[in-house]
């Protein structure tokens, strides 16, 4: 069964149609790359999946459970929206780390706050905290940041910040981890360390949707590629096919522009 099914998502900002009837699905443990020029709707699509935007039409299902049906009233969208979001993780282009918290605190804060909602929180507070901190340490170590746990974001490089952000998103064990151009705000020499971490997650079959301008990376790491243009899915398929032998004229144009630069 597909872990994620997206059906007929439409989204307009004013009179501008940003997403035009987007439908796709993906399997658990796979990586989906979304490519396309700026303004093609990639980021808006990710924001819809994370309920930061409400689509005008469409359905989003995770593991068969309907999280969003835009034909239902807006009230239904807001109801439990906080818990619906936890199916997805989101890594932002600009990291959005919390500046007043250390790397470790950034990773553990949300988990600690969620633990407060557990019925036995009061009795087992210190046990929860210990387990959550341990989990946070493990995640940061996985990201190669074992020496940076006590550092504040301003003391970290961009690449380190983005790796903290990835650990923070992983801490809540989302079904699907989304990346919104995770290396676009980084100096070129720092993109490698972030891409390596994402590659490592792919090898461990983390379900991921990656919006990126790193074409070589998208081709290597993805099981499936979607090329978006003008708010529509223009071409979709196996990365080798889409990159090696694009069928649509628009895809060819887009990819040739990338190989030139």
């Amino acid at each position, binding site marked *: 069964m597909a872990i994620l099914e997206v059906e007929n998502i439409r989204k307009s900002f004013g009179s501008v149609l940003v997403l035009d009837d987007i439908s796709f699905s993906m399997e658990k443990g796979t990586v989906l790359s979304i490519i396309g020029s700026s303004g093609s709707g990639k980021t808006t699509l990710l924001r819809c999946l994370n309920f930061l935007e409400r689509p005008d039409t469409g359905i989003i299902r995770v593991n068969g459970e309907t999280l969003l049906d835009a034909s239902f009233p807006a009230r239904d969208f807001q109801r439990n929206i906080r818990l619906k979001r936890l199916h997805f993780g989101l890594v932002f282009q600009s990291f*959005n780390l919390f500046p*007043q918290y250390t790397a470790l605190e950034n990773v553990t804060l949300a988990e600690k706050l969620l633990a407060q909602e557990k019925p036995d929180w009061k009795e087992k507070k210190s046990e929860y905290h210990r387990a959550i901190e341990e989990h946070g340490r493990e995640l940061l170590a996985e990201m190669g940041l074992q020496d940076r746990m006590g550092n504040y*974001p301003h003391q970290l490089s961009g690449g380190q910040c983005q790796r903290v952000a990835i650990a923070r998103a992983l801490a809540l064990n989302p079904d699907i981890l989304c990346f919104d151009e995770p290396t676009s705000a980084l100096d070129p020499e720092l993109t490698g360390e972030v891409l390596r971490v994402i590659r490592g997650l792919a090898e461990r079959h983390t379900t991921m949707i990656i919006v990126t301008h790193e074409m070589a990376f998208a081709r290597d790491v993805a099981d499936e590629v979607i090329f978006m243009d003008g708010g529509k899915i223009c071409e979709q398929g196996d990365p080798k096919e889409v990159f090696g032998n694009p069928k649509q004229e628009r895809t060819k144009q887009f990819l040739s522009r990338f190989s030139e630069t």
Partner: protein
Amino acid sequence: MSFSEQFPIVLGSLNTGFLQTLRLFFITLLGAIPLGMVLAVGEMSSFKPLRAVIRTLVWIIRGSPLMIQLLIIFYFPGLVFQTPLWGGGESGRFAAAAVAFVINYACYFCEIFRGGIQGIPVGQDEAGMVLGMKPAQIFFRIKLLQVVKAILPPISNEIITLIKDTSLARIIALQEIIWAGQSFMKGSQGISGAIWPLFFTGVYYLVATGILTIVFAKLEKKLSFFR
């Protein structure tokens, strides 16, 4: 009377006056900071008429001299409605001055709070939201400290200005330190024609603003662990 005889008398009067100055200062802070927060929240509400009302109030209060506001608030009820709302005497003058100062400073604080809250990048909200945080958690656990850090310099400016602005209450004869200093020009407690007590009040303001400057520098340093 020689200077050494005058000095303790003047000091006693100035101390009493300065106590009134400090009372007005602290009451204003105590009232204006919470009221400023309420106004800031109202100014960010999605209810347009409320925003318009608060914006107009802020424009009028910030756009006219505090001295005029003091005079209007003190004299208006008695002159126009024939109801001396404030009563006579020092306590009435103090109440009128406190109301004028609280309203005036709340409007300045309101704009500082609003700017501080709106200046936090929207990405902080979004990061909190996708991590399943509640709106209150996002505000108190993520944004509040960043807001405090951002508004500390303008707030310290306002507060240092406030300690000096309290002297405007002299216009309704509140017996604060300027009034106390001035009294020795006209004559008081056997001293008359002395201008040095008025000049000497400056020392009190300098000490007070000096202390405030040190306190705010310490606070800023405390919050310098993040950027």
